[in-house]
């Protein structure tokens, strides 16, 4: 979706201002929210692409003003409400409605290391041969889906050169909406800065993005 999260090339956000010796957590609640996201139970079929999309749906004014782990809070709450796993009253009060049965299948501490080690493999075998070859010129298509996608606006319609081919990967556009993994060939495409930003940009530098086959067309 063409949301405010799609930030490549925006102006006006101010200086980067890195913090010296930044602590891992800026408040104890951040650590709790991190652990809840990692260790908590989500609706059936929920996956990382859906998580990212739910986060993208945060209203722009909240997206920009709330801090990172607060985005995680907002996203987990939206997922709970949407799936019916929690009600608004329960979220507001912090307590389960009277008579709610307590589940017994939450991730256990002894499962954490293995989950961390083995989770998040997105490469998938794919039968069709790749459409594009390394070194080939391709154009990122001018697509504007209202649902989840990972083709940023700043590359749409722009021509680049395929640098890497990663084989088949789960397609977020489909996976985020629980429509199946629909794996496609994934490529890294390099775009010159001038192609992206015009003739006054650097003549030498490049930006590269990882783009699925359906995001691309021959150029």
């Amino acid at each position, binding site marked *: 979706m063409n949301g405010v999260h799609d930030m490549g090339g925006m102006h*006006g956000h*101010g*200086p980067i201002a890195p913090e010296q010796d930044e602590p891992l957590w800026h408040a104890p609640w951040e650590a709790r929210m991190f652990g809840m996201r990692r260790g908590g139970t989500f609706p059936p079929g929920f996956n990382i692409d859906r998580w990212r999309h739910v986060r993208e749906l945060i209203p*722009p004014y909240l997206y920009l003003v709330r801090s990172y782990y607060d985005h995680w809070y907002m996203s987990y709450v939206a997922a709970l409400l949407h799936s019916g796993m929690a009600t608004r009253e329960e979220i507001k009060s912090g307590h389960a409605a009277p008579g709610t049965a307590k589940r017994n299948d939450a991730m256990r501490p002894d499962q954490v290391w293995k989950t961390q080690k083995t989770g998040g493999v997105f490469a998938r075998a794919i039968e069709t041969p790749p459409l594009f070859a390394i070194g080939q010129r391709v154009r990122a298509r001018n697509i*504007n889906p209202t649902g989840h996608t990972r083709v940023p606006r700043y590359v749409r319609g722009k021509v680049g050169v395929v640098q890497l081919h990663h084989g088949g990967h789960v397609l977020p556009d489909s996976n985020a909406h629980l429509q199946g993994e629909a794996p496609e060939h994934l490529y890294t495409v390099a775009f010159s800065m001038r192609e992206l930003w015009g003739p*006054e940009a*650097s003549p030498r530098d490049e930006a590269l993005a990882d783009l699925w086959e359906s995001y691309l067309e021959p150029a």
Partner: protein
Amino acid sequence: MAASLSDHPHHHDHAHSDVPSDPALRTRTLESLLTEKGLVDPAAIDAWVEAYEKKIGPRRGAEVVARAWVDPAFKARLLSDATSAIETFGFLGREAQHIVVVENTPAIHNLIVCTLCSCYPWGLLGLPPRWYKAAPYRARSVIDPRGVLAEFGLALGEEVEVRVWDSTAEIRYLVLPERPAGTDDFSEAELAALVTRDAMIGVAKVEAPKEPNA
């Protein structure tokens, strides 16, 4: 390439963390300060407010539309040089110095927006409604005009061409809506009374007059 953002002074940075978030309070404080410094005369503020409350509003645009409906020669002038046609009404002014009028027909439906801020033909329509200036309309008009019109209750046939005019410069656009059926013997004033602001932005059609109950 423009200098990095860290080189630019950040005009907005400090002020907003120092003042209360309630705009009523901040605005009253600002007016008080500007008055003390002689940077504004409160009576001038009153005069501006009154101009747009009482004198300048969509009735002006409606008069232009009604004239175009009854007078073909005027309509032709309006479509070829709206600025000079409207000047005869004395309606040019602030935010309405360069006008283009776009005609709705059964084949073409026009819609006006300002995606970048809130440009609007004040001199003909008065001050814009809040929805016109807000993100949803500004974002969606150019990408999904039919969806926007549907939200206003207007469904257009697939064969109708929709044209969305983005007011990126100082040209101000006015839609000349279609004259509704059943108004052949209406006077110019009666016609003007039918023309709504929303029809002149392009998010509505002008409704045919209601039949009196038998």
